[in-house]
């Protein structure tokens, strides 16, 4: 593939990605007040979206085949419980990740 073609494809992807991020700021540019429904969505969306992103992270887990997503669910539970208990970001994420690496490398091969 030519240099120009590759450059063009990356540029198109970059422009389209930026467009999706820019859209809300162009629609609501700060000069006129933000409609209450949009403000409300801006406040209530984050917990829902974060929940969605957690699901997104496990989207490629095959639930029907062994180990049925057990390492993922177990480590998410450990991370969450540890965080409820100690409320230390690095500790929760560190322990969850190391446990997961250990499980997928040695236990659930």
């Amino acid at each position, binding site marked *: 593939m030519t240099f120009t073609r590759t450059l063009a494809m990356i540029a198109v992807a970059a422009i389209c990605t930026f467009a999706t991020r820019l859209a809300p*700021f162009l629609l609501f540019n700060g000069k006129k007040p933000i409609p209450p*429904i949009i403000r409300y969505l801006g*406040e209530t*969306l984050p917990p*829902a979206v974060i929940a969605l992103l957690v699901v997104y992270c496990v989207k490629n887990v095959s639930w029907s085949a062994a180990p049925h997503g057990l390492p993922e669910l177990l480590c998410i539970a450990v991370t969450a419980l540890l965080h409820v208990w100690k409320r230390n970001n690095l500790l929760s*994420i560190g322990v*969850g990740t190391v446990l*997961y*690496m250990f*499980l997928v490398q040695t236990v659930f091969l």
Partner: protein
Amino acid sequence: MKKAFRPAFAATIPVLCGYLFIGFAFGVMLRDAGFAPPWAFFASLTIYAGSGQYLLVSLLAAKASLFTVAVMTLLLNCRHIFYGLSFLETFHQMGRRKWYMIFSLTDETYSLLCSLQTPAGIDPAAMRFWIALLDHSYWIAGSVIGAVIGGVLPFNSTGIDFAMTALFTVIFVEQWKSTKCHIPAFLGLGAAALSLLLLGPDNFILPAMLAICVMLAALRSRFSGEVAK
């Protein structure tokens, strides 16, 4: 500005682990598709979207049309439209840095900014800017390293990308604790799980996002008082 660097760096360490790894994976994929390391640098610098760049590798490999690239990228990144809604006022107050903040609003930066607590004496705008800049640099570094050294690693890194899942889980808990009304959280979880079940891993994000918005809008009168911060 300088004072905000340390707390910002501390906040981004989970993203550092996650981005180095998924950026690395992108670099390796791009290299395997036959593209030299400068392309990994250029793509990560200008696009800066995890799943979007993974998709791009397959589009590049398939020599897809520019139109296909545009449509696929827009569809995949539609969720970003909703991210900005939470930062309309915050970013507008950041002057020229606003443009970079908008450009760099990835899933991970979004989630860090959502749960940001600025230590006393630190300028919140400066801390937000550092977080955005650091995350972007981790992403670029990861993808270039991946493109340069390929699949040769001194240790078994399988599963290290779980750092990203753990990060979202931690933020989920933080948000759970910071609000009394858990309906949005349940709604998000339920809509995402159901959508994944019905539509499969490649197409579930956008319908789930739309369903969440519609349901939140429908429930607005019922609990808009409860969730007001």
